[in-house]
């Protein structure tokens, strides 16, 4: 049953990316073009998502356990270190170059666009490199 929820949550997330047009890299790049022709839409996507998810998160986390799992399972890492800053900066540079972050990139595979397939392939190589060289463990 929780497998079905994973699928449904993914579908709803993907629909949200299309409705908000975040699946389109040009729309994301226009948000990052703050000093040029700026499209503030992405900020409204984040606000919309937070308005729904944040209050409900704080309500739900006080429950004894989730409806279909033994316990809540999320990172409560509070560490603010070099890895956080360097990793975020590298991500920001890649995001600014291509206009793609992981969610929209994977959703855009639905369009069978060769350019987004290449991006996702490179992104997965990036994930694998971090795992292989243990870059997320050492500080």
């Amino acid at each position: 049953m929780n497998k079905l929820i994973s699928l449904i949550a993914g579908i709803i997330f993907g629909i949200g990316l299309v409705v908000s047009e975040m699946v389109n890299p040009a729309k994301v790049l226009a948000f990052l073009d703050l000093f040029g022709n700026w499209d503030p839409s992405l900020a409204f996507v984040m606000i919309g998502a937070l308005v729904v998810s944040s209050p409900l998160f704080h309500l739900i986390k006080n429950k004894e356990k989730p409806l279909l799992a033994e316990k809540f399972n999320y990172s409560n890492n509070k560490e603010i270190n070099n890895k956080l800053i360097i990793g975020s900066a590298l991500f920001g540079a890649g995001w600014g170059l291509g206009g793609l972050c992981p969610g929209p990139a994977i959703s855009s595979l639905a369009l069978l666009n060769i350019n987004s397939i290449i991006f996702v392939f490179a992104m997965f190589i990036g994930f694998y490199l971090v795992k292989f060289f243990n870059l997320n463990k050492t500080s």
Partner: protein
Amino acid sequence: MNIVNFTPITATLGGMIIGLAVVIFFLFNGRLVGISGIASNALTEKDNKFDNLLFLLGLILGPIIYSLFTSKEINITISNSFILLIFAGLLVGVGTRISGGCTSGHGISGIGRFSLRSIIATITFMIVGILTVLIKNFI
């Protein structure tokens, strides 16, 4: 700065749909959505592998289901430089895993639970993303 192509209503609505997906995943499965984590763990970890793969499948099905129900075509504009896309993909893959999150994991789930770590990550990748676009526009 010129404000162009701003779509606040669909952006907010799409954002709320994304927020709903985050809430469903948390309420039923007890996990917080972070696409870079889900995608990278689907590749490298045994735990929750099938759940993660189903979520990713859902992300891809989302746009397809949206198109079927609305009969709207989804158009995206993406760079067609393979070198740029590979470089951007590697940066996004490596960066999100070193910093432990992307636009969804830090930007929505993390900020939603008022994590300072995620707020700092989000500010960092936004600033670097904006600077990257600024520099790219100069070249």
